[in-house]
């Protein structure tokens, strides 16, 4: 029987190719994403091993506040410590290090890099030493307050050359520098696509951070003692009140690698979630191909049964085929995945994100994972069709038809409806107050139910969707409509991948449009001003608080208020805290204060988001203890709650920072123009002021509100991109099914051609069948996707998402796209159908 199975495989190469294709695609995404993640990890590991290659010891502040998403805010240390460390026995070189926000303006006046998107823009210290990775490629090192150097990639992108005057935006505003040098970083033009502006230490500290302060000290020793001993000696000379810690080179390397590693791990998980979705969609295609091939081989199998093969032998023969297809397909998929990951890297390069040449890393775990998962998935998908193949009665060999004709059973309807009912039951239980975690079961129940019910729904829905085709495309349309309904099981299985893909896309779109709608309405309500200055500086500072006060003084302006953001420790955990000037912000930005006014916000009081206060059981008069980044603590009294949207759940008065060394920046400035000034006039002067300052971007009310939804769009784009994988598999699924159907209907096609169907008409018939199938999946997907979106929005109501909005235009767009998908998927099968040899088709019995 084993030999028969193998012969069966080799005898039908076309079918083997088609089946393997589904496996290849499913596994290619799996291996591609794991290879890509591994390569990225390795690249960054190597990069940081390289960065700290000559660093034996590392001194930094011990004062740190960790916030969500692994971000942390560490205090800076005074530069005087450098001299103390330099005197330690065994130290050969000390280098002050600083990395902060800076943006280089190109020769065309446009700042390099972008706000909030793509790689970050940095500024730092250039100092020639054993431990510095920067080397001057051209010109000389910057010295003094008027000189700067930039990295090679930025010089090229900004058309800057040595001798030019370059404008750079830093924490202290924007300034012009003499460009004296162009620097290269190890062997790349710039690390990871980031831009770098470099200065001497005093200039960097003053311009980018705080005069006299640096991030860390990099130390190289003479190797007379171990790194641990060297670090111990250094630590001894540093005064305890300077609150520093000393790490060995190995420790800081490991820490940085781990930090990047965990950030990448999140990305890796995201990628693999979507590759598993793609694989799941691939399962349907594999299952479908095996089902069809079992049906097409019914007579052959019946003959084998008639001459003495047992049920088990028939089933095992098909399973052997599945294993072979699984192994071969996964192996090819593995290789295709490596190509895919290279493609991803190439795409990043094209977006000028220059990754250091870490080379390709193919972890053995990726190989075994891909092969095992691919084979198991194929085998599992083939299990049911194989069992069904074994059940074929020997008498079927004598029967005429070899086409799957069985209609959907009553059992199927009952099961499907039961799952859907249970699913809806879970969802309604949650809306009635049950735990939100039950929603997952509800969604799963409905999805499984719909997939089980698929064959029952497929026929009526396909007939309905096919109506226009039958109406307007004459007999070809009639045949297409009937063809898509003639085998409901097959049609349902073919449209399932489309269904899953579309429902996820619609759900995500519905969620995004709800979030955007919410942002829109909330900001429209809260923001009473006319303009805003907005900045995204990657967590490295923000707008200088002086900009808001400067703008407020302008005659064209009635008022301006900066919204500051700092990180502080609350109950041991880092939290974002908003800081406002209560007198300035009143009447310009209403955060939704409940039963209180901005006037109540004193030096020692705090406003808390209503949901947060409820959770913490705080009321007016409760006390909250905050520890700031400089290590000082202060107790605040809750003065009231707010129910509006804000970047953080806490608001304090900016005057808290007066006379302290707590660094604070504004993330936005809200502006109200004077009444007698026209919008255009106000914009003109404000724009000039902001541009002169060199930080942030001036937006009017509408633009500002739209920019708040920008992040949602970005995330949406990423998710669309990842779901695109599933869509490709869905298209391939339609192609495969259509091809197999075309093979199966050879005689019918031959007959039609003989009695006068032109090739054009053959193509039309196949194309419309494809379109109907694709639309079937889309319609079911849209219905379920909207439901799913609603459920997700409902689950997020505690996070402040209160309104569900239906993405009407996107839904229409998806319908149009599934029409296009249908047309595209039909191209090759339709061409094959026109190539049917009439005589051969009529001769085969």
């Amino acid at each position: 029987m084993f030999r028969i199975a193998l012969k069966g495989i080799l005898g039908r190469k076309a079918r083997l190719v088609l089946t393997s294709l589904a496996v290849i695609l499913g596994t290619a995404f799996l291996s591609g994403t794991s290879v890509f993640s591994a390569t990225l990890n390795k690249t960054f590991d190597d990069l940081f091993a390289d960065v700290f290659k000559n660093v034996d010891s590392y001194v930094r502040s011990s004062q740190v506040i960790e916030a969500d998403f692994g971000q942390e805010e560490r205090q800076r240390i005074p530069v005087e410590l450098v001299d103390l460390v330099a005197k330690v026995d065994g130290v050969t070189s000390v280098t002050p290090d600083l990395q902060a926000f800076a943006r280089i303006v190109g020769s065309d006046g446009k700042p390099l890099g972008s706000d909030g998107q793509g790689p970050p823009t940095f500024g730092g210290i250039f100092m020639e030493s054993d431990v510095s990775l920067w080397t001057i490629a051209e010109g000389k090192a910057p010295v003094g307050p008027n000189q700067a150097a930039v990295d090679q990639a930025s010089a090229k992108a900004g058309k800057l050359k040595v001798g030019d005057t370059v404008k750079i935006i830093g924490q202290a505003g924007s300034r012009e520098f003499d460009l004296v040098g162009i620097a290269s970083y190890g062997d790349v033009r710039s690390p990871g696509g980031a831009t770098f502006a470099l200065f001497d230490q005093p200039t960097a500290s003053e311009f980018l951070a705080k005069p006299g302060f640096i991030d860390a000290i990099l130390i190289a020793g003479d190797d007379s003692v171990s790194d641990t001993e060297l670090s111990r000696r250094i630590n001894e000379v540093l005064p305890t009140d300077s609150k520093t810690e000393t790490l060995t080179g190995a420790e800081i390397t490991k820490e940085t690698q781990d930090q990047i590693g965990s950030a990448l791990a999140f990305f890796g998980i995201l990628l693999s979630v979507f590759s598993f979705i793609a694989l799941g969609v691939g399962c349907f295609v594999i299952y479908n191909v095996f089902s069809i091939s079992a049906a097409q081989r019914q007579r052959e199998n019946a003959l084998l049964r008639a001459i003495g093969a047992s049920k088990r032998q028939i089933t095992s023969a098909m399973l052997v085929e599945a294993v072979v297809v699984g192994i071969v397909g996964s192996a090819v998929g593995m290789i295709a995945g490596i190509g895919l990951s290279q493609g991803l890297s190439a795409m990043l390069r094209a977006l000028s994100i220059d990754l250091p040449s870490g080379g390709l890393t193919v972890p053995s775990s990726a190989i075994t994972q891909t092969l095992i998962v691919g084979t198991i998935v194929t085998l599992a998908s083939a299990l049911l069709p194989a069992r069904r193949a074994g059940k074929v009665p020997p008498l079927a060999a004598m029967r005429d038809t070899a086409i799957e004709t069985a209609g959907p059973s009553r059992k199927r309807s009952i099961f499907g409806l039961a799952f859907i009912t249970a699913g809806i039951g879970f969802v309604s239980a949650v809306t009635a107050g049950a735990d939100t975690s039950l929603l997952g079961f509800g969604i799963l129940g409905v999805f499984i139910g719909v997939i089980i019910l698929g064959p029952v729904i497929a026929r009526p829905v396909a007939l309905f969707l096919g109506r226009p085709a039958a109406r307007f495309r004459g007999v070809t349309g009639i045949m297409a409509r009937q063809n898509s309904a003639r085998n409901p099981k097959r049609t349902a299985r073919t449209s399932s991948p489309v269904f899953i893909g579309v429902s996820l896309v619609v759900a995500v779109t519905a969620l995004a449009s709800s979030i955007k709608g919410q942002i829109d309405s909330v900001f429209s309500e809260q923001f009473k001003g006319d303009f805003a200055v907005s900045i995204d500086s990657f967590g490295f500072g923000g707008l200088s608080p002086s900009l808001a006060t400067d703008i407020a003084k302008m005659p064209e302006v009635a008022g301006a208020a900066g919204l500051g953001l700092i990180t502080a420790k609350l109950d041991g955990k880092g939290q974002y805290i908003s800081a406002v000037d209560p007198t300035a912000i009143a009447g310009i930005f209403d955060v939704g204060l409940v039963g209180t006014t901005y006037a109540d916000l004193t030096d020692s009081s705090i406003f808390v988001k209503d949901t947060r206060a409820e959770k913490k059981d705080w009321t007016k008069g409760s006390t909250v203890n905050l520890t700031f980044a400089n290590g000082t603590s202060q107790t605040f009294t809750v003065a009231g709650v707010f129910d509006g949207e804000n970047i953080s759940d806490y608001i304090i008065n900016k005057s808290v920072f007066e006379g302290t060394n707590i660094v604070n920046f504004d993330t936005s400035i809200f502006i109200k123009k004077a009444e007698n000034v026209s919008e255009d006039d106000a914009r003109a002067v404000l724009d000039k002021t902001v541009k002169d300052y060199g930080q942030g971007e001036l937006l009017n009310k509408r633009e500002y509100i739209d920019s708040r939804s920008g992040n949602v769009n970005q995330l949406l784009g990423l998710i669309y991109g990842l779901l695109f994988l599933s869509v490709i598999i869905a298209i391939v699924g339609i192609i495969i099914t259509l091809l197999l159907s075309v093979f199966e209907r050879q005689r019918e096609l031959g007959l039609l051609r003989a009695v006068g169907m032109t090739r054009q008409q053959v193509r039309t018939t196949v194309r419309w069948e494809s379109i109907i199938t694709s639309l079937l999946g889309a319609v079911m997907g849209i219905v379920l996707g909207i439901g799913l979106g609603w459920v997700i929005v409902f689950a997020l109501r505690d996070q402040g998402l209160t309104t569900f909005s239906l993405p009407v235009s996107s839904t229409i767009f998806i319908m149009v796209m599934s029409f296009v998908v249908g047309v595209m998927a039909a191209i090759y099968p339709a061409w094959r159908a026109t190539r049917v040899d009439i005589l051969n088709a009529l001769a085969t019995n």
Partner: protein
Amino acid sequence: MTSPTLTAAASTSGATKIYGKDDSVVYALRDVSVEFYSGQFTAIMGPSGSGKSTLMHCIAGLDELTSGSAIIDGNDLSQMKDKELTELRREKIGFIFQSFNLVPTLTADENIRLPLLLGNNKGNEEWIQKVISTVHLNDRLTHRPSELSGGQQQRVAVARALASEPRIILADEPTGNLDSTTGAEILTFMRKAVDELGQTIVMVTHDPVAAAYADRIIFLADGHVVDEMTDPTAERVLDRMKSLGS
């Protein structure tokens, strides 16, 4: 039955069909020149491999001659492109095959009108109704092929072949899959189509009884036309076949 003025609905001259190449060439047809007259029922007979099916396929434009020509209603098939051939088959030729004649997804009525529907042609409704009643299908029109018996299916096929009032109807063993009673019924309808509706039919068969329904029989052997017979009976045909050694 000979009418005073016989015109050819279809003809071949010097038709030769060779399969294979070099050493392994097989002559399916050797220099066959025949005419199929309008208003006549002609049968083509011959043993297996005699070339009778090939001859029919070449007349139908389903297969290409190696040399010589096949002409239908004045059109030289060798000069026509695929699209023109398709339209010729749709408009001027009716087909009846041995089995699998009907499109399973279409109703009997749609199957009958298929060539007209494909050509976006309404057809002659009066004629179509006449054809349908001639083959007694009036009460079966909304059924799909799977709901019809073998004989009924073949009657639908006959009706389809007639529906577009073609210049010529080509039938390939139309009764090969039917029992003798049903077969006789189909052949009677075909006879009626010629006698009462004035149609032209060419039928390939190896059954002497079926061939006896024809006005004229052409005998093929080894790709040659070896004999011809008019107003045949089953016995005479059987004798002739024996002498041809089939």
